[in-house]
């Protein structure tokens, strides 16, 4: 009786583990399938001419250079606005702010900012930056819109990275005659840098791949030249992909998937950089 129950218990245990393993594998399966399918369909389209050429024949042929350059500019523009603002806010929240009604309100705002649908950001950007501030349909308006969307990610990951630095470092530093700001500069920020960078890259990666926020603020349907000022509109990869997948009849499937592949590589390589930074920092961490 005793032996039988112990066997059945072991069996239940093994069954439980198998189910959990299967579930873990199932979460990996879709991403592998997606990547594999896009590579399979899109790889034949990739060529030097595709990456460096302009679209032709109503976008049914030629390259996607303006969209690649546009996405690069938008990501850069987003970084310029959201990185200093996000890290600054995170430093304030983690190092200076007392726990009171005011900071709780700020935190609540950040959490809610993260929950807003991206198309709402797009409309907001249209209203504020494009129309009210008269930036027009431009890289500037698009970058600012994407920045607002990216901020919550950057703030919360940066704040988490700052808080992970042991409190004892701060106390010791101050006991040695450092000011709060010197402590942040010399100890807290350097120790939190890898975590902050990871958050920044993940935030920008999301910005690079979004369609809705740029829809009304920057993206051009077709613009066969490169933008040459922040007040220019531009093509961008995600919007271009949307356009050629839904708006252009007789579009070769190869070009659609080729465009998707380029966007995927753009975003995944940012992800890889973030992973690399994080693992290297973890190996060198001294606490």
């Amino acid at each position: 009786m005793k032996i039988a129950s112990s066997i059945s218990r072991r069996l239940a245990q093994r069954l439980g583990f198998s189910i959990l393993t299967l579930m873990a594998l199932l979460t990996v399966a879709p991403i592998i399938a997606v990547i594999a399918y896009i590579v399979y369909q899109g790889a034949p389209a990739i060529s030097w001419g595709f990456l460096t050429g302009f679209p032709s024949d109503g976008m049914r042929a030629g390259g996607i250079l303006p969209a690649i350059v546009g996405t690069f500019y938008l990501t850069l523009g987003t970084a310029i606005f959201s990185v200093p603002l996000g890290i600054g806010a995170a430093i304030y929240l983690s190092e200076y702010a007392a726990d009171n009604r005011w900071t709780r309100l700020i935190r609540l705002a950040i959490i809610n900012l993260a929950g807003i649908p991206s198309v709402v950001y797009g409309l907001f950007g249209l209203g504020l930056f494009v129309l009210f501030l008269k930036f027009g349909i431009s890289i500037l308006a698009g970058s600012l819109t994407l920045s607002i969307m990216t901020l919550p990610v950057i703030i919360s990951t940066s704040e988490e990275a700052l808080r992970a630095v042991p409190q004892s470092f701060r106390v010791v530093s101050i006991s040695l005659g450092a000011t709060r700001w010197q402590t942040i500069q010399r100890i807290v920020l350097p120790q939190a840098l890898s975590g902050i960078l990871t958050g920044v890259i993940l935030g920008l990666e999301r910005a690079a791949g979004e369609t809705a926020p740029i829809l009304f603020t920057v993206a051009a349907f077709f613009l066969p030249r490169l933008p040459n000022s922040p007040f220019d509109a531009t093509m961008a990869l995600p919007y271009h992909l949307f356009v050629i997948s839904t708006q252009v009849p007789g579009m070769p499937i190869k070009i659609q998937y080729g465009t998707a592949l380029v966007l995927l590589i753009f975003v995944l390589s940012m992800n890889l950089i973030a992973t690399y930074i994080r693992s290297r920092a973890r190996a060198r961490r001294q606490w």
Partner: protein
Amino acid sequence: MPPTSAHARVPGDSGSKPMNKIVIEHLCVQYSDGTESLRDINLEIPANAITVMFGPAGGGKSTLLRVLNRLNDLADVTELSGRVLLDGADILDPKTDVITLRRKVGMVFARPVVLPFSVRGNLTYGLELAGEKNRARLDEAVEHSLMQAALWDEVHDRLDDPAISLSGGQQQRLCIARVLALTPEVILLDEPTSGLDPISTGKVEATLQVLKQQYTIVLVPHSVQQAARVADLAAFFLQGELIEIASGKDIFITPKDKRTEDYVEGRFG
């Protein structure tokens, strides 16, 4: 150190008795969460001696240490009254320059906390913040402070190694050296040997005996035995009150207060 201020108290009875470096008058401290507090503390801490503050946990010893270099500014203190005179100047005065004060009054914590730098980086950190850029002077401070903390022989060839690679005992002596590098006048130690083995503890205590010739040392020991070993002056704290103070070993052999006696003999705490 000669008395430099009109407030400095020079004992009248004999010229050989050292002057008091720190004079605490009617000090009251209360934290907002009500955890640990100090009630009307009056204490004179002599220069060039080891003053030990002992007693059960929660008695206010660490709080008092943290008042002495204003580290309690970081805590949520709701009440802070009385005077703490360092060389006659009240350090609780809002006009006190706390940065200068903390360079003058160094603190060694219970757990050795080495900063995430090299051994050398830990030692030069405070000096660089104070504006010292001269490489030769920094090197000299590194060597001198390590000598004083009896650590030079062990680490002189690993100055550029990460400080975290040192053993626990070495790390704690590095923390002492780090305070010494700033050439302070007072050294506060909060149970500095609580995490150390007996051999490392012995080294730290021997180091303190040498250091007291130059510095004013205030120590919260991690046991009554340690208090008895190192004290020139011993103060017994219980629940935020200073119960008894006596010089040398007297308090451990012939305590005057019943509560001190009970604690020293191990009946509680």
